[in-house]
């Protein structure tokens, strides 16, 4: 089972964190700090897996963003690497050639997509079509609801 997933930039800024095990805020911060440091120190050609405490860390860099997952001893590293890739594909498809800024400004969307794809640390739906269909349906729901909103409100003048 995946224990957590972290997205962070080359500068070490956390862009998304998802925890599938209960940990205190303090522990989460310490883990993120440790791991970001460890991974940023590694050279590009190194292998994507490392042992860290009693967990296996699987990470991959996409442009300026690092995607990093912690899985348990019994878990499969390669399939976790492809979980990362599939998530990137989902973001890419949804935002249309995703970049770090999309994830910063639409962080809530990044979370919603992740929840459709992974739940409780396990893959819930691995079909790209099905995940995006679920997200698009939700977007439709909200556009219907948004329609009667006044123009003033839209531009933040309320």
């Amino acid at each position, binding site marked *: 089972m995946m224990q957590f997933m972290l997205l962070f930039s080359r500068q070490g800024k956390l862009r998304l964190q998802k925890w*599938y095990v209960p940990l205190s805020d303090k522990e989460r911060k310490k883990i993120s700090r440790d791991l970001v440091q460890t991974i940023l120190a590694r050279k590009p050609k190194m*292998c994507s897996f490392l042992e860290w405490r009693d967990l296996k860390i699987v990470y991959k860099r996409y442009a300026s963003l690092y995607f990093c997952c912690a899985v348990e001893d019994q878990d499969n590293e*390669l*399939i976790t*690497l*492809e979980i990362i890739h599939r998530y990137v594909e989902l973001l890419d498809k949804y935002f249309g050639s995703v970049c770090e800024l999309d994830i910063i400004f639409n962080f809530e969307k990044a979370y919603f997509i992740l929840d459709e794809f992974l739940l*409780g640390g*396990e893959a819930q*739906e691995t079909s790209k079509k099905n995940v995006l269909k679920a997200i698009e349906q939700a977007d439709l729901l*909200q556009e219907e609801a948004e329609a009667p909103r006044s123009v003033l409100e839209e531009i933040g003048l309320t």
Partner: protein
Amino acid sequence: MPAVSKGDGMRGLAVFISDIRNCKSKEAEIKRINKELANIRSKFKGDKALDGYSKKKYVCKLLFIFLLGHDIDFGHMEAVNLLSSNKYTEKQIGYLFISVLVNSNSDLIRLINNAIKNDLGSRNPTFMNLALHCIANVGSREMAEAFVSDIPRILVAGDTMDSVKQSAALCLLRLNRTSPDLVPMGEWTARVVHLLNDQHLGVVTAATSLITTLAQKSPDDFKTSISLAVTRLSRIVTSACIDLQDYTYYFVAAPWLSVKLLRLLQCYPPPEDAALRSRLTECLETILNKAQEPPKSKKVQHSNAKNAVLFEAISLIIHHDSEPTLLVRACNQLGQFLQHRETNLRYLALESMCTLASSEFSHEAVKTHMETVINALKTERDVSVRQRAVDLLYAMCDRSNSKQIVAEMLSYLENADYSIREEIVLKVAILAEKYAVDYTWYVDTILNLIRIAGDYVSEEVWYRVIQIVINRDDVQGYAAKTVFEALQAPACHENLVKVGGYILGEFGNLIAGDSRSSPLVQFNLLHSKFHLCSVPTRALLLSAYIKFINLFPEVKGTIQEVLRSDSQLRNADVELQQRAVEYLRLSCIASTDILATVLEEMPPFPERESSILAKLKKKKGSMNVPDIDDSRKNMNGNGHVEHNNNIEEPSEAPAQSPASVVAALIPTNRPRPTSSSPIIPSSGIMPASHPFTDLLNLNSPPATGGGSLLVDVFSDFPGQAPAPPAAAATAEVSEDNFLRFVCKNNGVLFENQLLQIGLKSEYRQNLGRMYVFYGNKTSAQFLSFTLPQLIVHAKPAEPVIEGGAQMQQIFNMECVSDFSDAPVLQIQFRYGGALQNLAVKLPIMLNKFFQPTEMTSQDFFQRWKQLGAPQQEVQKIFKSQHPMDIDVTKAKIIGFGVALLDGVDPNPTNFVGAGVIHTKSTQVGCLLRLEPNTQAQMYRLTLRTSRDSVSQRLCDLLSEQF
């Protein structure tokens, strides 16, 4: 600012995020955030009721601030309000906030649970999914209590939408992880298993994870999943990749589902049903075959997904550990990956091979890759890969390759990364001890370790070398000579000074005959290091000095002079000062006799688990230490007894009387013969009229040859306890591994799919102690676990062994007279519903009571002649069953218990040994000679003892070993 491509576009939020990004400094950012927090707080507190949109926007801003790493202590109530909004986006943000900022505020939990309850009951699949995601994300106990009974219902209801089923399955999985006691088992479990047959692959994917978790908890309830999983897997593996549409990933059919199914199958032993089993084997073969096919795409995603399935299949093959051909094929496949250009694959191949090395079917196949692994150690650029290579070398090490592997590890250590040095040091120390046939090699290796990586040599390592040197008199002279030479180096590590001080203090006399290492030279050498050392080392050296006074009266004056100097007698450190004062006084007033008694050579350390191994286990977690003490290595002549985790310092207290030294050493591991201790009463304690007291004491008269022992043990217990159930008596006696224990004392005695019985034993003279470990390999409980009444009498054994747990039992035994049959251990327990009966022959053999005897060539042949009567000699000529390796043969003879005598036989290819069998009443001297004929692959074994039954029995036992 980027255009927000989709969604509702909360402009205020986007502006705020831009502001934060434009902040030039951390201070500016904090200022901006505080301004925003004040603004939000005033909005939330304001008189004007906020509309849903504003609430959503502000809650979202709070969430953003929290994710930046700042604390948020308000806004929870507003988020909870959003949950009951009928607008989807507001509800969604509310749920996100709750999921990310869980707060155990019980008032809020009640409100949250209310909102969830409404959404779960709404029959709107989108809302239901939001609620289920929230439960899965939070997973708190309160939520489990509130919803754990609803979710199974939703999961198996016929009219539930597929996407809701998926969420419900994983939601239940999460609750089962956090509060397993709350998840009710019931009729729904059978229906959950059938989700493996569902048409929707997404549902199957989610359900497989749930079933795997539940099956780990109660395997019996989910046994039916085996056949469904195999069928499903088989359909995927053989499908054309277009069949599965969007579940095909870069030309690989449903890789995630395949991996999960293979994982589920790892909860169980190989299927019993032959058809099913062959279908599974076919699947695994197909997966292995596919690895050899040319790739369908050049994309790394294709090969990753394909290999993910392959590695999981190999894990299953290793887990089953029953199909030699598959194991060897897996090993060959991994061997190819060892040289792959992808670093990831090399890493995984090394990792996976570590587990293959521990299977007796594939251990040899793994060993063929040794050169490649050694090469990886030298050339890999990534430390994590090199670490894996070290692990694999450790796992594949056995007596045949130990010298090379230890040498390679030592040479790697010189340049190894600092982060893994300590671990390598521990591993080298363990391997060197474990596979030492020749203890001079062991001493050299440890001294090299200290020279190369002294800072990483932990106390346990140098304690251990001292324990071993003290216990083995054949290596003491060599050790003294070697440390003396090593200490000549101008700069040597403090750990070497410690070892040197201790060893010269004990055994310096063995090299004092040479004028180059005369007592005074030894003392001056040690003392030249004194001033550079830390206080504990100096204290140890002072003790070595007082030992010198006893060993070498001629240096007494010089040493007393040193002790008397102000820098000792008035040392600021209390410990040093006290030692100096006491040792000086002792040397002045005690007579030679008293001095000799007080400063006598240290008594041998009791055998125990190497403290180094304990340390490595602690460091890595015992899961990760490949157990190299496993049954396949039956040539390990000198297995140490692993039963005590105490890390014992070689007690350096020469000033105490020997008696108190012994007392200080022993209490941690000497069995205390109190009534509560689990010891079978020996006849010395119990009146001999109890028939069962004879049983494990092996007290059968030689006339019956011990043949009635088995019957004695378990057939007749006058009034003590009910006779063993008839069923138990019919169980076939397993003696598969019996002969493996002739030359070793530890290992796995018996193993089936449920139970593993491990043994550790130690013997001294006519006494022995055996530790029997009953390990439950399943995840379910064994109930009514019954051992023979005899044993129950010895120890009130727990009737229950938890899944995955181990129970230990200790037997003490005494050899009363010589014997040939071994006692049988009868075991009975309930697993699931079925009563299991087992009978295993305990490997207690006559040769266990050997004490080795060293003797000269002349003595040997004199005694050999004395035992010349025809009935005293037994000879056997037999064909060799194993490769004729000299080192292995030597190790086996030593393991058999006799001393291996070098240079006795005029023909150097022959082996001769001598020892004495200790029984309670008598001692039986024993000489043996083994003559190998390598051309004919034959051996001639001759045994001469003073008693014909002993000669015969020993010959029978030993001749099976070569």
